[in-house]
């Protein structure tokens, strides 16, 4: 996992964290909705931000696999590398 990509994704995700979750709580294994408590409606916004930032397109079936930070990175890296 490329640390640059990881840091960039963390930067995107942190905007969507609820007030009681800190950016330091984000770990590669963190589950986006169950552990970081991100509102599931905001997952579509994260996908849009990721698409803009990395200049890629993420398909609907890939969104369903973006459960953790790590799985999101894998989907991103398969497209940017």
């Amino acid at each position, binding site marked *: 996992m490329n640390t640059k990509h990881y840091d960039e994704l963390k930067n995107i995700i942190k*905007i969507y964290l609820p007030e009681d979750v800190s950016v330091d709580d984000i770990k590669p294994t963190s589950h986006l909705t169950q552990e970081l408590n991100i509102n599931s409606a905001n997952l*579509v*916004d994260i996908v849009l931000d990721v698409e803009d930032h990395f200049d890629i397109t993420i398909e609907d079936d890939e969104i369903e696999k973006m459960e953790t930070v790590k799985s999101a990175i894998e989907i991103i890296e398969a497209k940017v590398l």
Partner: protein
Amino acid sequence: MKNRVVITGMGVCAPNGIGLAQFSDAIFSGKSGVTFHQQLADLNFGCQIAGQPDVTPELLKKYFTPLQLRDLQSSGIEYGMIAGVDAWKDAGLNIMDKDAVDYDSGIIFGVSLLGAEKFRSAIYQTDEGKVRRLGSTTVIQTMASGISAYLGGYIGCGNQVTTNSSACTTGLESVLMGYERVRNGDAVRMLVGSCNDSGPYIWGGFDAMRVLTKKYNENPTAGSRPMQEDANGFVPGSGAGALVLESLDSALSRGARIYAEVLGGAVNSGGQRMGGTMTAPNSEAVQHCIRTAVRNSHIDSQDIDTINGHLTSTGMCPTEIKNWSEALELRGKDFPYINSLKSMTGHCLAAAGSIETVATILELKNNKVFGNINTGNLHPDIKGIIDDSCVPSHTVNKTICIAAKASFGFGDVNCCMIFKKLTA
């Protein structure tokens, strides 16, 4: 046994003042919130002046999370949250913890339409085939009940949380609906009010109907002239007003400050018959509404100390005065004081009734009748019905026990409410 209902909190986001202190100063000193809007001029509007609250990005940070602000394009939600949250806090009520819901508290917060700017963006993206780029907040920013949903989530309300809509009657109707719910014991307290977006997509339709004034683009604060002979159309406005209605028992038991009692009210429609149309009122129905409100409040019409009218600064003002006079059976010097906040704010549309109710309650609280601005030219048809002195052009000190407020709207709908200083 019906509950007595009192007002224990208020908030306001008006063109001439945000927050009770600023708004109170504005209405009693005759400060106008109507300004020239370059955007309207650039878009070839006939009327290029409007009333719009001066909301800063810093102020919004007090009411929204950074995430909510990120793509917020709904001025109505901004105004409504400022007024609604302020009213709740003004009443000394708590924001519920994350794991608790207040099933005794509800919200009826009205709109005409919401999130016009957001909807415009969404339409452009959709037409470009980019529907998947709309993001997660297009629906919640443009659904009519978006404002009650934002407020409900902020506070943690668990009683009825909904939105009413009846054009320019909306704001006052929300007061009546919340009052009925508390009176009937279905809720202990209700946050009521209304908001209206600002901007060309809201005001354009009125400009096209030629009901807005076009003669004051060079002199904006003089544009809204309710009851004056030279009134030639209303000035469009926007904003929000909010009130906390609560059972008297609850207010007393928690030692809340009580602004006034809601004595009663009435709502009806003229059926778009007998002179009533989609856009003009059936006078018989207006009078029926006022009389019913007085009767429901168990007062005599001569008990009314002051009236806050609808009085929009179109050619309909003399008809409204005639309707008040005939419904109350009061003429000349026997008629109470009457004023129109719209002289200072323009017509805030769906938000008018709630902002103007806040102004009315401030009159009761301060024993002052705010003066109309842009006076000196009272319409001759009005002079033939009531005495000139009934239309103050400066704020008058007067003990006010009972105040009446009415709003009328497109669709030929009417609402009238009666408020009273609380006595034992």
